């Protein structure tokens, strides 16, 4: 009986460690992943206008020139708190990489790719 217990101790300890590892990873482990989202925005820039002095008569009305409308692309950085199972799924299609800063970065925005790039 003592021999059986001795032989079973190491597998039991490793099994417990494996179960604890899975539970911790699946339930509690969260990793921050940043996503850079490019947002298109329209901005209006009013045009400055000064009527010439000879046109400055009482009662005169000079409509201002129409503003300039420009489309600019702004980069928003959003941080997602991703649990490990979701991170496993993300790496299966190459959706997460490690940036030079050491942060985890999402490689796509919007719809994820369907296949691993390798």
């Amino acid at each position, binding site marked *: 009986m003592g021999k059986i217990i001795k032989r079973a101790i*190491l597998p039991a300890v490793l099994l417990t460690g494996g179960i604890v*590892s*899975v539970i911790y990873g699946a339930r509690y482990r969260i990793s921050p992943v940043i996503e850079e989202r490019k947002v298109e925005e329209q901005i209006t820039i009013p045009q400055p206008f000064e009527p010439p002095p000879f046109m400055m008569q009482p009662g005169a009305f000079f409509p201002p020139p129409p503003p300039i409308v420009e489309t600019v692309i702004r980069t928003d950085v959003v941080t997602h708190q991703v649990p490990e199972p979701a991170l*496993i*799924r993300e790496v*299966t299609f190459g959706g997460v990489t490690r940036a030079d800063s050491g942060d985890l970065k999402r490689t796509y925005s919007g719809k994820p790719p369907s*296949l691993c790039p390798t």
Partner: protein
Amino acid sequence: MANKNKKSESLVSRFTRRRSWVQTAFLLVWLSPWLRLHSVCGPVFHCYSCPLATFACPIGVLANFSAIHVFPFVAVGTLVIFGVLLGSFVCGWVCPFGLLQDMIGRIPTPKFELPVWMGNLRYVVLAVFVLAIPFWYGEEHPLFFCSLCPAGALEAALPNGSWPNTAKTTITALVLVAMFFKRRPWCTVFCPLGAIYGLLNRVSVFFVQFHPELCTDCDLCRGRCPCGGIAERRAGEHRCVRCLECVQCRALTVDSVFQRAEKQEDVG
């Protein structure tokens, strides 16, 4: 004890004859047209980019997590659980890539054996291509394991209609050719997952035990062994895929840590 061993080994021998059916049945678990659980790490070597893959490949997860410098608690825990319970029974009875090699190995071509020491190359593959290169150079490196994996080429790239890179194509072609002339060439020489399960063979709950007092030197075990007829006749050690072909001989039995061993000769 001898009678009990006889009874249990005949049951195991009978079961062993149906191993191909068991392996094929497990395909229904790893391949599913409806179920996608890629957030769950599977225990077998099967590419997650396969159009029918149910689970994530544990080696792919280890490699990718190494690249992003995150410890893969779920993947490691899964491998430890399956390894401690079953060891490389997973290789011999459950793995779809092992099934492919077994099926091709049945083709009656001349079979050759490689030197026993080549089984240690699996640890080199695990340490270098799965862990070290992704950790130091990232997943873009050409020697990143998934960029070389033949399972990825056969199970993912070709079914998805894309042609793998040159290195992957070459490795896949060599492994496929090797399958005709050596039993289980990937498992016995290169498989990093087999390396992990092989290490856990020594501490697994279920193992193959050799009874030297019952051995008559008939060499049945060596003849049937797909792992090069392990010269020491020590079934169940780290190179063993636990296919149980050798258990046809009564000198080898399947035991568990809960059974008393008559001798110290249990070998994992």
